[in-house]
């Protein structure tokens, strides 16, 4: 199966086609085909996982990988070789475009995670989207998205990766704008697409530079050349920066994060799948896949500050802070996602490769859980609204399953022992402290504090207090709650695959294997740091609980933002999302739309069109001259002259033909006489 992993993306692609063509005529309107195709992909992904684990376990010199061991290249002694399979699609001189798969630990992990979450979301959607106006298209597109994401994950060359990348962007666009009849939804879709597109410019520049530096699009080859030191450092810096811009756009890092909150206009399952678990992590995946480029380009091994870590750190903070002032539950989760993505990028930036992808892995489960939980709340509790302040409250009494799973997800997100988030976030923090990136350790801790706090606020507003809504809340049907339970289970258990304290490093072993990595330092579990991080989180929960769980009158902070001008200003700053949206829309876009566009238009009308028209006028005049002088007088004169000459000559010759035979005979005999004389003289 490892060699045939290309089937995994293929099945949902076929599902897409089938649902699109035949979906409306099927009894369940195409949902059954979609769920079946993703289900089959998941089964195959599990098989791939099992086979890969076997492969890793069977590899020799297994023990040397533990602890401080360096990551072995797949081609080194004791390393696990990745499975490559490709064929050349088009060859043109130096350039070789291939299509192929590259299965290593990272890819296997992603395959498993993506297909699992996608399957759960598909099942969830059968109930959640029941009766929707475009039910069939929705499932078709979910399938296409899954296929594209899987294509991206297993691709073995940057061009194929780019294809997958763009396709997931496209599916995101279509799915965000699923209810495009309402203008805000359509606007959000366009904003998402254009913002990620802006990042894609950097991505493409990075890919092209890597191609010219390494001479190939093949990822393994590129990594090999980078690790071998064959590429100049300047090129690597530029390439890494380009790729980083792509990551910023796609993975919602500051400053291109503004599209993510707006993307919540799409259906909730879409938000769960695309904007929590899969598409947004494509950027992190890119960073993990081409890690040697970043490691060498940003000199991560030398410690100190680098662009990747800084951006990640800023994002953590920005996302967390903005999550505080949201009324919409999905927007809280969106900013939370931004913040957690910041964790992953920061982890990559400080050399914690395993920690980054481990956090990716666990985050997918609990964030998807939280989103689906929010969807469950809106479906059955708040009458399809996501507004916490107005339409929710006290739902724990009516929706117990949703409540419990949501709380589990929140605790996992906050990083509470022994849930999954604790282990993954802790690993990041530990590596930060260990490898000389102390600054980022503090950033991570503050982020943990904030995360716990805003999630507590969110949980309180949704599930505690009195019900403020207008509907009749009840628990959601099984199709919705079962995925919640499954994900909750993973949120609890997934962390144990890499529980450093317990000496379990299975995750690292399995999924670091076969990946081309520079020499990394793996930090051991430190009890001190773990306790510190949990306590930060606990303090966060406590403070938030204190402020919100209290009754309104007793809350000393109540009305602070109205009383205190600084607090009020700060609140407004947050509410306006640091005025970033205004900057983008009014200043940048407006500036181009207004003066720049108008100036360009003037230039076009007067200078360019003036030149073109001028040329046309001159040509017309020349044509007239040519016509009058050349054509009429010269050419026609010549032609007419010839005709007249012919006529005149004919008129003259006419007289020869007198009609009198004897005249002709005379001429004849005269000629005979003359000729005979001439011939006789000659001979």
């Amino acid at each position, binding site marked *: 199966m490892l060699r045939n992993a290309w089937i995994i993306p293929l099945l949902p692609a076929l599902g897409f086609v089938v649902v699109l063509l035949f979906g409306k005529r099927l009894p369940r309107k195409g949902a059954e085909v979609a769920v079946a195709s993703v289900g089959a992909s998941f089964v195959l992904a599990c098989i791939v996982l099992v086979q890969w684990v076997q492969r890793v376990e069977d590899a020799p010199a297994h023990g040397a990988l533990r602890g401080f061991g360096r990551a072995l290249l797949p081609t080194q002694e004791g390393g696990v070789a990745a499975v490559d399979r490709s064929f050349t699609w088009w060859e043109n001189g130096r350039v070789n475009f291939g299509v192929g798969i590259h299965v290593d630990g990272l890819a296997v992990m992603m395959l498993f995670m993506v297909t699992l979450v996608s399957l759960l979301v598909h099942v969830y959607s059968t109930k959640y989207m029941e009766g929707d106006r475009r039910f069939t298209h929705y499932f078709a597109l979910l399938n296409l998205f899954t296929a594209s994401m899987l294509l991206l994950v297993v691709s073995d060359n940057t061009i194929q990766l780019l294809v997958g990348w763009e396709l997931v962007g496209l599916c995101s666009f279509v799915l965000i704008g699923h209810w495009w009849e309402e203008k805000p939804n359509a606007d959000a879709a366009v904003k998402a697409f254009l913002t990620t597109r802006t990042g894609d410019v950097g991505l493409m520049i990075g890919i092209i530079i890597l191609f010219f530096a390494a001479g190939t699009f093949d990822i393994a080859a590129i990594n090999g050349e980078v690790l071998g030191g064959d590429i100049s450092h300047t090129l690597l810096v530029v390439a890494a920066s380009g790729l980083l811009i792509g990551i910023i756009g796609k993975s919602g890092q500051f400053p291109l994060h503004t599209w993510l909150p707006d993307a919540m206009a799409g259906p909730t399952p879409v938000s769960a799948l695309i904007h929590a678990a899969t598409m947004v992590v494509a950027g992190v995946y890119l960073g993990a896949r081409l890690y040697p480029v970043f490691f060498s380009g940003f000199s991560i091994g030398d410690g100190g500050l680098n662009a990747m870590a800084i951006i990640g750190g800023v994002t953590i903070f920005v996302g967390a802070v903005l999550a505080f002032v949201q009324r919409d539950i999905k927007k809280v989760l969106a900013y939370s996602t931004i913040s957690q993505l910041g964790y992953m990028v920061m982890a990559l930036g400080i050399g914690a490769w395993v920690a980054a992808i481990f956090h990716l892995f666990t985050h997918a489960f609990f964030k998807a859980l939280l989103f689906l939980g929010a969807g469950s709340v809106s479906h059955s509790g708040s009458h399809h609204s996501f507004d916490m302040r107005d339409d929710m409250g006290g739902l724990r009494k009516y929706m117990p399953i949703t409540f419990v799973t949501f709380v589990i997800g929140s605790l996992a997100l906050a990083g509470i022992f022994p849930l999954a988030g604790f282990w993954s976030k802790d690993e990041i923090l530990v590596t930060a402290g260990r490898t000389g990136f102390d600054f980022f350790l503090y950033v991570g801790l503050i982020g943990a504090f904030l995360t716990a706090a805003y999630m507590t606020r969110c949980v309180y507003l949704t599930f505690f207090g009195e019900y403020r809504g207008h509907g009749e809340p009840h628990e959601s049907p099984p199709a919705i709650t079962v995925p919640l339970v499954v994900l909750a289970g993973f949120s609890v258990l997934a962390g144990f695959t890499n529980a450093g304290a317990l000496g379990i490093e299975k995750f690292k072993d399995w999924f670091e294997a076969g990946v081309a990595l520079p020499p990394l330092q793996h930090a051991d579990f430190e009890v001190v740091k773990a306790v510190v991080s949990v306590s930060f989180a606990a303090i966060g929960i406590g403070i938030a609980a204190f402020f919100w769980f209290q009754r309104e009158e007793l809350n000393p902070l109540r009305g602070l933002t109205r009383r205190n001008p600084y607090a009020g200003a700060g609140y407004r700053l947050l509410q306006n999302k640091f005025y970033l949206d205004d900057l983008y829309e009014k200043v940048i876009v407006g500036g181009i739309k207004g003066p720049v566009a108008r100036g360009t238009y003037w230039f076009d009308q007067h200078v360019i069109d003036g030149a073109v028209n001028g040329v046309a006028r001159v040509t017309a005049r020349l044509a007239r001259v040519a016509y009058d002088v050349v054509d009429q007088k010269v050419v026609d004169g010549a032609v007419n002259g010839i005709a007249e000459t012919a006529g005149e000559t004919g008129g003259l010759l006419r007289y020869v033909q007198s009609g009198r035979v*004897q*005249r002709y005979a*005379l001429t004849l*005999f*005269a000629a*005979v*006489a*003359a000729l*005979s*004389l001439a011939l*006789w003289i000659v001979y």
Partner: protein
Amino acid sequence: MTGQNIAFWILAIAMGTGAIGVVRSRNIVHAALFLIVVLVGAAAQYIVLLAEFVGIVQFFIYIGAIAVLFLFGIMLTRAPMTPADFDNDQRWPAAIVSLFLFGTLVALLVDAFGGDKIQLSDSLLESSRTGPVADSIFRQFVVPFEVVSMLLLAALVGAVVIARRD
């Protein structure tokens, strides 16, 4: 000067006069009669040259039939019996051309056949009799003979068709 020579010269002068008469006579009937003189002279010349059969045929056909035909034609076209000017306006160019042609031919002939002599002999006579001539026609020249017969037929039919009144 042999007898044939003398005969030749007498006939030649007669023929020459006749020829000039044909082309210069102001009376059409006279012109026809002058032609008959020429024809007779020609027949006689043939006999001098021991071509007896040809000479006889010349008499019968030319003089007996063609000349008569001419006289008929003259009558039928109401040709003026009185002397009239029958020369058209290109007589001088015509004269020049014919004289020029004559001069060229004479020069050419003198140059070519200057000293050749005709040998008249009995064998020539024998071979010029009717028998051998007929033999030759019906053996070597039978195809031209047939063709000429066809031609005569065509001419006959053609003349009838052309000249009939309808």
